[in-house]
């Protein structure tokens, strides 16, 4: 039960997490995140890292689509930009890891701003198609240019941090999860600033926002830039995680995956991004598990990929029709129930 959250100062009122209950739960969650790698096996660690990478990228797309209202079908391509940047820098210059990740974010950001330029004149579906075009052009560059290694892609060595090679999921966990948490914190705080509120205003009605004195082009480009920065860093983590980057690593279905994660999780909600990415990443794994339990599992392996497609599609359609606010809303409803529990409200 959580009642009586009184605030006595503006600082307390403006806090990101404002109640004792939240602090306790956050502490528990933090503890679980720290304990997780010591108890989980290799498979679950792998999944944990994958979920974290997807959360980072989904949050980026949520900034653009959920908060600014600009649809993008190019999130995977921006991730690809980041991943290739990391792989190339690692291969040729062997710079420190943090610099590589920042460079990945910066390159993706530049790409995002470039793609965002038409967004002032072009809206809605037209914009989605422009991002689709951008993602095909990026794919083309990855596959056909000399320096990206063509269709074979780039294979890289494990990154070194203080002489320790990041070659197992256990070690990578300590890179990926903190970076993701940092980015989540950044995104959560973003929407308490002028910039984030401007994004929300643009989403709700862009012309009204401009009348209110928000320069549309600048903020739309900023939203594109930030979103692809997140994608780029996530792509960098992806490169460190898999240590091989090929043009096939970032197909269009991956962009749709992120869009689905944003929708299923809840557009315009940080928590939604987390829930959506985790849920969508786990769906195929659960599917595989269920199939493993069925008799004659070996014959059914080839069915997993089409069933996954159908399931993804059904999730997108189902959530849009029955729960447009996504998992985040379900979560809020559950939480509200327990706020006054065991008393009826």
């Amino acid at each position, binding site marked *: 039960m959580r009642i009586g959250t009184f605030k006595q100062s503006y600082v307390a009122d403006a806090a990101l997490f404002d109640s004792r209950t939240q602090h306790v739960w956050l502490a528990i969650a933090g503890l679980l995140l720290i304990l997780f790698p010591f108890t989980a096996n290799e498979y679950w660690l792998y999944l944990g890292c994958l979920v974290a990478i997807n959360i980072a990228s989904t949050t980026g797309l949520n900034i653009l689509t959920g908060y600014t*209202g600009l*649809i993008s079908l190019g999130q995977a391509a921006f991730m690809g930009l980041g991943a290739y940047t990391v792989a190339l820098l690692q291969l040729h210059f062997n710079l420190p890891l943090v610099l590589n990740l920042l460079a990945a974010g910066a390159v993706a950001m530049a790409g995002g701003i470039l793609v965002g330029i*038409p967004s002032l*004149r*072009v809206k*809605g*579906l*037209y914009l*989605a*198609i*422009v991002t*689709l*075009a951008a993602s*095909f*052009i990026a794919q*083309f560059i990855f*596959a*056909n240019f000399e320096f990206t290694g063509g269709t074979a892609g780039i294979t890289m060595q494990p990154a070194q941090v203080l002489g320790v090679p990041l070659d197992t999921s256990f070690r990578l966990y300590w890179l990926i999860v903190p970076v993701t948490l940092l980015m989540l914190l950044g995104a959560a705080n973003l929407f308490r600033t002028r910039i984030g509120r401007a994004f929300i205003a643009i989403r709700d*009605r862009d*012309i*009204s926002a401009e*009348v209110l004195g928000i320069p549309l082009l600048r903020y739309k480009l900023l939203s594109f830039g930030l979103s692809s920065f997140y994608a780029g860093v996530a792509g960098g983590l992806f490169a460190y995680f898999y240590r091989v980057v090929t043009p096939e690593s970032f197909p269009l*279905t991956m962009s*749709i995956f992120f*869009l*689905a994660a944003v*929708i299923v999780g809840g557009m315009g909600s940080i928590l939604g991004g987390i829930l959506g990415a985790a849920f969508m990443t786990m769906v195929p794994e659960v599917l595989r598990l269920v199939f493993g339990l069925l008799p004659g599992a070996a014959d059914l392996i080839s*069915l997993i*990929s*089409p*069933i*996954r*497609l*159908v*399931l*993804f*599609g*059904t*999730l*997108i*359609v189902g959530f*849009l*029709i029955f729960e*447009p606010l996504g998992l985040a809303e379900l979560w809020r409803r559950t939480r509200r129930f327990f706020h006054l529990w065991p008393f009826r409200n």
Partner: protein
Amino acid sequence: MMAMDWGYLFEVSLTGIASGGLYALAALAFVLVFKATRVVNLAIGEFLMAGAFLFMTFAAMWSMPLWVAIPAAVLACGLLGAVIERSMIRPLIGEPEFSAFMVTIGLSSILVGLAELIWDPEQHRLPDFMPTQPIMVGEAFLSPKVFWGAMTAVVFIAAALLLFRFWRGGVALRATASDQGAAYAMGINVPRVFSLAWVGSAMLAAVSGIIVGSIGGVSSTSMGVFGISVLVVVIVGGLDSVLGALVAGLLIGLIEALASTYLGGEYKLVATFLVLVVILLVRPYGLFGTREIERL
């Protein structure tokens, strides 16, 4: 640098324009839905795929004669369109346009998955039904399948345009497209028009899917690629313009043929997308699209 071979260029352009006719037919299916319901159907390629697969099932697996199999496939696809409209699109009337758009993304994923479950992800050949006599236009050779495909497309486009113009349902459709409220007030059953638009669009898509499939074969993913080109066509032409769909269809067909011949097959999509971006920067509503005036 090789000297320019004008005869070859003519031949390539001819093939390009002929396959552009197929884009135009599929684009017409897209525009039909968009004009009437304002829903952007991203799953247009998957409708083509459904039509081609249904035709294959009827003709090759159940060995129906062609004159039964083709109409049966088209009708079955129309039924699919009706089911989809009722179950997925109608619940979203009144929601933001974005929702319906996203639903069609989900729909395309569902259709591809189902196709892989029912048939398989391999490339399939459709039964041949077009004449195989080579077509010569002057000196230039034109593949008979492409030629007859384009001719069929022209016939269906003309039929669709005549239906829009003179048939009662077509008039209702145009009325709904131009002003939904007024159409309601005039006694037009607008939800029924929505269904009609989806059924008609699915049937046109099935026709073009059968033609495209019999030229290049059909797999669960190949039609998706075709569908992306169709999207480029409708965007370049302007989403709500029938004329735009036709002109842009020919234009994109031509550009794709030239790009893949003179630059290499991998440049095909990139070239069309570059054209798309340039046209959108110059004319954000496409070549013939209506400029939307937004008011607060």
